[in-house]
């Protein structure tokens, strides 16, 4: 079990990084409700890849173990942990 607030802070730090590369109209809002995946997301698929990779790095630095977020476990869940920032934080907290 990991501190969910800490996880959310790390997700926001990864969002900051991705936002630096995105145009104004596609900036990702830092909120637990922000949709990351699917039609209502502002992220294109390659941006999502970038977000996940930066987040994995930050998690590895913070918790000193390596994370593979987009593994079969995540992908086989009926409801994707990547739906929004809140569900992603829940998923990582329980990792």
């Amino acid at each position, binding site marked *: 079990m990991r501190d969910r607030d800490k996880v959310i802070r790390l997700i926001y730090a990864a969002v900051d990084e991705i936002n630096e590369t995105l145009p104004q109209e596609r900036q990702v809002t830092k909120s637990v409700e922000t949709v990351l995946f699917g039609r209502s997301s502002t992220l294109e698929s*390659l941006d999502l890849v*970038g977000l996940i*990779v930066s987040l994995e*790095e930050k998690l*590895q*630095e913070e918790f000193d173990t*390596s994370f593979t977020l987009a593994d079969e476990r995540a992908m086989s869940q009926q409801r994707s942990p990547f739906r929004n920032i809140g569900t992603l934080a829940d998923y990582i907290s329980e990792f």
Partner: protein
Amino acid sequence: MDDAQTMVITGTRKGIGRYLVEYYAARGWQVIGCSREPVDFSLPNYEHYCLSVSDESAVSTMFAAIRKKHGRLDVLINNAGIASMNHVLLTPIRTVQDILNTNVVGTFLFCREAAKLMRKHRYGRIVNFATVATPLKLEGEAMYAASKAAVESLTQVLSRELADFGITVNAVGPTPVKTDLIRSVPQEKMTALINRQAIRRYGEFQDISNAIDFFIRPESDFVTGQILYLGGV
């Protein structure tokens, strides 16, 4: 963190990998290498990691250390590779697994981890190792040739997946070069193989660094997904 151009080379204890370390270190590159056994040389701008290229957690720890220390990676040369001359009917499954792990899984893992780091600066050059044994359909090297066919395919698909990050992915396919890799292959087999090249001689280390130099030049940013066989194969 430093400003020197940084390069990772796998399989640096001996053979072509060791030559490449000396060649690029002498040209001012910060070189980071690895092999299962430790190396018996040391150079001021060379760091060594003892690991097997197919060991995911060791590789990921190595890249985390590179990220912390250098904060960048410009070039990856996936040189580590093994072969085993054997008739298919006499090839143990353990040999098959070892060849696939080192040549395919190792190349994949290093490409993946390197690309994560290269992505940060939207610049990178990856050079993989193919072989003329694949196009020449070399008998006695079925698994080796097949594993390098997988490396070619990986090179071509990754060149597309990584293009948006400013990363090129190419491969060099050497002809026989006198290293331990081919030591156990009988002389007449080698001569027969070399006779199938347009230019009939053994490859030299310089032939390989020359091809790599071309792929990693900043000007080669429009060259990707290519397999360059030497010797006119």
